[in-house]
């Protein structure tokens, strides 16, 4: 091959053209062949034909060549881009390695910010975005009655039967209620959580048993033999996963019951997440025959083409028709139809959204902070960039370098963030109390899925944009000469300062929002924990007792057993007093009763009051306050006329300005058996959640209206938790058939109660975000001021040389810092009040514009700002004018 002339090398300067390349190459071949043949004596025409014959199908080869050539070009373009990218990344890595402190702090900050938002988003995804694990879950509706006090009230069985018969909007409508079953175990009868469900329940969800069969359609009638399905977990626990469990008969709460099936492991239902036994709901018992006895929840599957609104409208009509037909029992009983998913996660939604907002703000601060760090560095590199620009590096090339550097930082940050997020998710999950987790089976699927990874990618992309924007805006294009001559000071430095200061102001403002939110949530939590309970929760042991129906069919037997139990417990060492109640305090405003008063006009309205049955020592054990009249006594039993105590809220609502003592009340018909005389008024005992209002409550004598299920309250002089085993064994000694569960202390129960836990999670997490944000923004402030002082060393030196006092220099720097802090705080406070209005629902006892919290936030930030700028200010004041002027 001859040496290629220089012009040939630039032949393809205008880009490759594989089509003409192929053509050239093949033409060269044919022409050479023809020449050779002619030289051997062929005529020109014959030579041309022969050459083409020997070559074969020219066109086919040409096309093949273009194809292969095109592919190669794409490959080489890719390779070239890849090489460029590697070069950029390599350069970025070297640049970052030159300043490992900056790189590692930027990565750490980004990782924290990204991890927090990913972890919270994973919860949001699991709770709010992932569909429920049922067939067509968005067609499932939560169907309940609805009244003024209970927007989601229970259904009564007769109403359910009518609703099911009359509606044309649900392809199926089923009901359920929680329950527990006493199972014989080696350690004695143990209550196992379960549910009673109508026969079509699983069919409505689209769930088929993994083993055995579903309920038959008529298996929830009174005459059907008792049958249950087990949850997968229950099957493992009770039968060790043996398949011969199907068809076996076991005693559940003393009743022989056949096990007909096992549900798949994937089945979960949040209303009773720990249910292990599902029994067919048979309308035995008086409650099932009473239209005013509400103990069920409904779930329905919408027919095709029916909207939730349409279903709601029809169910309301049906409820109205029933109200007209049964004015006594159904007055004010409306209907509620909401998507099942919404009913399940309704109360965690606001908390999660608040947390997501908090995490987002933290991420914003992290990005601003890193952006500020990069900006400072970009400023230091102004001269480098200016030189590179002058030497011909295009603006695109310089921008590309900044973006690559941000990308490298963000990618490393995001990957560490993902790992960190996994840890954070574990920690958060472990913070949720076990009781709460039972109602959140959807959190079982917490983890990295496509949604979460997509979100992480989106967050990383935003972070790249954010982090590279500031330095790019500062690219010294058009001021190249400035950049080189002033060494990064002078006018350009001032522009930087404006941008850097804006970033710091933003940080401070966002921090104010987070701090204020954290302050409000913490105050709400404290308010909740300090709320007047109306009793002394310390030193109270509690547990729940379940009497088997079979062993205690009569009221007298139940009352007698309670009397014996309390006697036995009082004899235990350390026990001061013991009592029972049908429902512990701080549980719920629920289990209500409709009351009517003798001698007062009655218009058929439902006077809804909490109804609890308690033993005589209940109030003394709780150390509740007697307002007037007397407490219950041992003689208030079945042999004596019925008596009742009411709380102050009751007295205020139904006996305003009257003395209720001695007044009589009863059910809505004032039937003789229901009549009871008010003998005392007690101070309000918190029945519902800590942040709930005190409802009117009546306390009947347990001996006059016993139950098979009740809670024990035992006040001890020693630690309440330590006496629990003794209490259990004392009860078992009396009767081993009795089921015992939920051994705990009242204090623990209150601390772990749903509303307290929810508020605690919100307060702690937002406080954590706020603390991080605070550190970041104070650090940012320090960095900015320190850098600004460093940049102005010469100016400060001149000032000092011209006679400025150290004090005035210090004041100048501090003033600058204070101006930033003050602006940020003011802007932040406006934003804080606006965003506090968004979390109003989570506040308790504080207002969205709570002035003390605002003041505290402002003081803390100002103090921190002063502290952060003190060091740079001192350094500035200590500048030696001689050295400062010589420094250049």
């Amino acid at each position: 091959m001859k040496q290629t002339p220089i012009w040939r090398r630039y032949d393809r300067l205008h880009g490759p053209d594989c089509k003409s390349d192929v053509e050239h190459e093949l033409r060269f071949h044919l022409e050479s062949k023809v020449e050779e043949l002619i030289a051997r004596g062929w005529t020109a025409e014959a030579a041309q034909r022969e050459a083409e014959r020997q070559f074969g199908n020219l066109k086919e080869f040409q096309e093949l060549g273009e194809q292969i050539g095109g592919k190669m070009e794409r490959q080489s373009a890719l390779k070239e881009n890849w090489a460029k990218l590697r070069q950029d990344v390599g350069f970025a890595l070297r640049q970052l390695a030159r300043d490992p402190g900056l790189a590692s702090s930027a990565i750490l900050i980004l990782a924290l910010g990204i991890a927090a938002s990913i972890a919270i988003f994973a919860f949001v995804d699991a709770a709010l975005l992932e569909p429920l694990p049922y067939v067509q879950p968005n067609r499932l509706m939560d169907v309940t009655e609805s009244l003024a006090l209970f927007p989601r009230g229970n259904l009564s069985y007769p109403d359910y039967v009518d609703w099911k018969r009359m509606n044309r909007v649900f392809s199926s409508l089923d009901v359920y209620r929680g329950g527990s079953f006493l199972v014989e175990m080696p350690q004695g009868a143990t209550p196992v959580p379960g549910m009673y469900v109508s026969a079509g329940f699983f069919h409505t969800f689209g769930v088929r048993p993994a083993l055995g069969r579903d309920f038959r359609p008529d298996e929830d009638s009174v005459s059907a033999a008792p049958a249950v399905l087990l949850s997968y977990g229950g099957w493992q626990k009770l039968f060790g996963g043996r398949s011969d469990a199907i068809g076996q008969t076991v005693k559940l709460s003393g009743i022989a019951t056949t096990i007909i099936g096992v549900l798949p492991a994937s089945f979960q239902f949040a209303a009773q997440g720990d249910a292990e036994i599902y029994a067919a709901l048979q309308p035995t018992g008086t409650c099932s025959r009473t239209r005013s006895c509400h103990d069920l929840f409904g779930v329905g599957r919408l027919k095709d083409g029916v909207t939730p609104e349409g279903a709601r409208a029809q169910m309301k009509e049906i409820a109205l028709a029933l109200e007209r037909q049964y004015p006594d029992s159904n007055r004010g009983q409306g209907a509620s139809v909401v998507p099942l998913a919404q009913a399940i996660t309704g109360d965690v939604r606001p908390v999660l959204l608040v947390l997501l907002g908090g995490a987002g703000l933290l991420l914003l601060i992290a990005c601003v902070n890193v952006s500020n760090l990069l900006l400072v560095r970009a400023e230091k590199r102004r001269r480098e960039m200016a030189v590179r620009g002058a030497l011909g590096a295009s603006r695109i090339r310089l921008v590309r370098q900044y973006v690559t550097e941000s990308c490298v930082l963000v990618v490393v940050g995001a990957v560490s963030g993902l790992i960190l997020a996994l840890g954070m998710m574990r920690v958060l999950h472990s913070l949720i109390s076990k009781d709460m987790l039972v109602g959140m089976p959807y959190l079982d699927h917490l983890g990295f899925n496509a949604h979460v990874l997509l979100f992480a990618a989106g967050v990383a992309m935003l972070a790249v944009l954010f982090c590279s924007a500031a330095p790019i805006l500062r690219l010294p294009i058009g001021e190249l000469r400035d950049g080189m001559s002033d060494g990064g000071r002078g006018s350009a430095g001032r522009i930087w300062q404006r941008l850097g200061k804006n970033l710091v102001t933003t940080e401070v403002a966002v921090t104010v929002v987070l701090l204020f939110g954290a302050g409000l949530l913490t105050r709400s939590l404290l308010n909740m924990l300090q709320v007047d309970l109306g009793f002394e929760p310390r030193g109270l042991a509690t547990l729940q007792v379940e009497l088997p129906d079979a062993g205690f069919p009569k009221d007298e037997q139940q009352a007698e057993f309670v009397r014996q139990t309390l006697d036995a417990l009082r004899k235990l060492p350390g026990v001061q007093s013991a009592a029972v109640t049908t429902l512990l305090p701080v549980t719920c405003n629920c289990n209500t009763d409709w009351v009517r008063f003798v001698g007062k006009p009655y218009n058929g309205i439902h006077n809804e009051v909490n109804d609890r049955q308690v033993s005589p020592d209940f109030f003394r054990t709780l150390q509740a306050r007697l307002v007037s009249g007397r407490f219950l006594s041992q003689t208030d039993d079945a042999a004596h006329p019925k008596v009742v105590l009411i709380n102050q809220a009751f007295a205020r609502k139904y006996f305003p300005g009257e003395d209720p003592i001695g007044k009589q009340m009863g059910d809505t018909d004032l039937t003789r058996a229901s009549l009871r005389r008010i003998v005392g008024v007690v101070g309000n005992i918190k029945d519902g959640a800590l942040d709930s209002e005190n409802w009117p409550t009546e306390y009947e004598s347990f001996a006059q209206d016993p139950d098979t299920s009740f809670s024990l309250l035992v006040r001890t002089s020693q630690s309440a938790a330590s006496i629990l085993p003794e209490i259990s064994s004392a009860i078992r000694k009396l009767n081993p058939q009795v089921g015992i569960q939920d051994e705990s202390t009242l204090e623990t129960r209150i601390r772990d109660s749903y509303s307290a836990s929810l508020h605690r999670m919100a307060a702690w997490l937002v406080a954590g975000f706020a603390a991080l944000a605070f550190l970041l923004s104070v650090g940012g402030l320090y960095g900015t001021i320190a850098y600004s002082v460093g940049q102005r060393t010469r100016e400060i030196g001149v000032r000092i040389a011209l006679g400025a006092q150290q004090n005035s220099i210090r004041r100048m720097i501090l003033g600058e810092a204070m101006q930033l802090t003050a602006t940020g705080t003011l802007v932040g406070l406006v934003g804080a009040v606006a965003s506090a209005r968004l979390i109003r629902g989570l506040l308790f006892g504080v207002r969205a514009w709570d002035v003390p919290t605002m003041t505290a936030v402002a003081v803390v930030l100002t103090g921190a700002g002063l502290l952060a700028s003190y060091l740079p200010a001192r350094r500035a004041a200590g500048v030696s004018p001689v050295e400062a002027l010589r420094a250049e």
Partner: protein
Amino acid sequence: MEGSKLEFLRGTLDVLILKALVWEPLHGYAITGLIRRESDEALLLEEGTLYPALWRLESKGLIEAEWGLSENNRKAKFYRLTRKGKRQLQFETAAWEAYSAAVSKVLSAARPAKAQEA
């Protein structure tokens, strides 16, 4: 000439091309000539089929191409063996020699001894 045409085994062309480029870079026309001459005119190929083979080898990185000037001063595409191509040639040559030795050993065998049964 017509009668003694040997069918090219698929894949054989590739190794012949690699071999042809061992001494110096060549353009396609020179490669056909070289193969024809060195095989004593026994290996004849439809000349066009050479080019797809060349392009494929180029896209695999076994040879690389550069435009240059031919002996008669025309613009021609020259192919050069890459280091990867040299390794491939060594490997293929060894494989071919082992294969052909095995085949010719079988073809030239006398009546085989009976397999010993244990």
